[in-house]
């Protein structure tokens, strides 16, 4: 069966469905934000564990890596008997995908603080606690933000697949477009997804730069 070719972009349709587009924008943003935020919180906890017990890094990386390898569609499917077809399913899966990258960057960031800086801080008379909050965290922040950036952009892409759960954000348009051979919807879905990812990418790049003024100064 041949599909009938519809005009590539139906601007009327876009105009008429602005409301839906805005709703889906909100859906896409909230799914992304919640998943990354949750991922951040869990990663903080796991990183604290890793810093305290070095040997846990390997098993933790192993597990989060395993989760990362499982294709998103499969993970959504596996969660269905457990939580059903809903936002909870989506968030659990999306959060899992952020863990590997955020934890890896957090640990690398904290381990990346140069040893002489820490020794000098001790020598000046900083307490352990003060050293952690005023030396290690600020200096690790750029790398951590970089991890959040990658996690966020990746999540924006993965949210499109949640369309199979009835959600999807912009992925809703992609799936509908595919099922009805309505190209406009597909193009709108893909384009908006790319735009959103790019905006967030640039936002994080800006944030990273803003939080590390010292990395900007030329010699």
């Amino acid at each position, binding site marked *: 069966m041949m599909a009938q070719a519809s005009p590539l972009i139906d601007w009327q349709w876009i105009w008429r469905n602005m409301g839906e587009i805005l709703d889906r924008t909100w859906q896409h943003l909230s799914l992304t934000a919640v998943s990354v935020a949750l991922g951040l919180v869990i990663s903080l906890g796991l990183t604290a564990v890793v810093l305290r017990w070095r040997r846990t890094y390997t098993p933790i990386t192993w597990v989060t890596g395993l989760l990362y390898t499982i294709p998103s569609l499969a993970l959504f499917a596996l969660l269905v008997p457990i939580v059903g077809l809903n936002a909870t399913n989506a968030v659990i899966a999306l959060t899992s995908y952020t863990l590997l990258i955020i934890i890896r960057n957090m640990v690398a960031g904290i381990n990346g603080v140069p040893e002489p800086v*820490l020794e*000098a801080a001790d*020598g*000046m008379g900083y307490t352990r606690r003060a050293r952690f909050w005023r030396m290690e965290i600020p200096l690790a922040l750029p790398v951590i933000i970089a991890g959040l950036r990658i996690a966020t952009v990746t999540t924006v892409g993965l949210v499109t697949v949640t369309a199979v759960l009835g959600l999807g954000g912009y992925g809703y348009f992609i799936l509908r477009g595919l099922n009805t051979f309505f190209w406009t919807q597909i193009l709108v879905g893909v384009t908006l997804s790319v735009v959103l990812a790019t905006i967030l990418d640039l936002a994080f790049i800006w944030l990273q730069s803003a939080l*590390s003024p010292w990395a900007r*100064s030329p*010699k």
Partner: protein
Amino acid sequence: MGPQDLTDTMIRLEKVAKVFPGASRPAVDDLDLDVGKGEFVTLVGPSGCGKTTTLKMINRIIEPSSGRILIDGADVVAVPPHELRRSIGYVIQQVGLFPHRTIAQNIATVPALMGWDAGRIKERIEQLAALVGLDPEMLDRYPAALSGGQQQRVGVARALAADPPLLLMDEPFGAVDPIVRKRLQHEFQALQQRLGKTVVFVTHDVDEAILLGDRMAILNVGGVLEQFDEPATILANPANAFVEDFLGGERGLKRLALLPVGEAQGIRWGPVVDVSANPEEAKRVMEEESTDWIGLLEEGRLLGWVDGSAVGTGPLRDLVPRPFLVTLGSDASLRSALDAVVTSHARVAMVVDQGLYRGMLDLEGISEEITE
């Protein structure tokens, strides 16, 4: 000499030892050491001699396995480590400037921790910048923008910020190139003379230790103290083969570099007369001294020398003396004198102080110092 009684002692190490977990031998074994107030003590030795470990035990970066350490009479374990360290200046080889803070903020670290008010801090920063030779323009830059030598200066300023009586330095000039290192060494020496801090300075470079220290502690592997004395004394009388070996070759020359010309025993008047003397006198002096030349003075000032054959019957005043190529001040080292002697035509070094002639040194006079 070292401190005579306890009240003059800044640091006392009593039977201090450190064994690292899993190590077969102690890093530092039963070390006793006293450092007097205002003294500049260097800790030198080969790798594994425990010099850095010893230094780090003073401010408790490393805790001793046994023994105790007193600073100004008080045991270091009596106060929490971070409090102890705020009253000790600490400079390490890689400096460890905080990359996320400006130079000014780096220097202000300890005063800020101690709660000084902003005005006082600002004043102090400017004072210190001038003291260590840092361009005030640098104060608002970040460490990444500075060269190695500049970073080291900031490290020193940062350590001095709260005006601590004691300074601990671990190979602070090791990470810069030799030219910058020389400059930093001399500047720090001048600084130390002005400030009179007690300094414990670790280095693996024996020449640096000889140059900077009032007293030098030579450590052997395992923290064994082989000799602890003034550099000139150690150079003249090394305690054993290890020390001799460690001091390296040309010990005699190295020692000469420490001794000022003004205190040399071998200085004598030599073949020098005033221009008002008569030519016969000049000839007599030349014969006495067995030289073929004579130096001429006018009102105590050294004019130069003339060849013996030029001295005839006419007045000495008419002769045109050739100036000496090199003259030394009394605070020049005997090593410079030796260099002058070897390179001069007449094989002598003339000592002139504030324009006035003091005497001369020849090879014999200098060798007397070496063999003393």
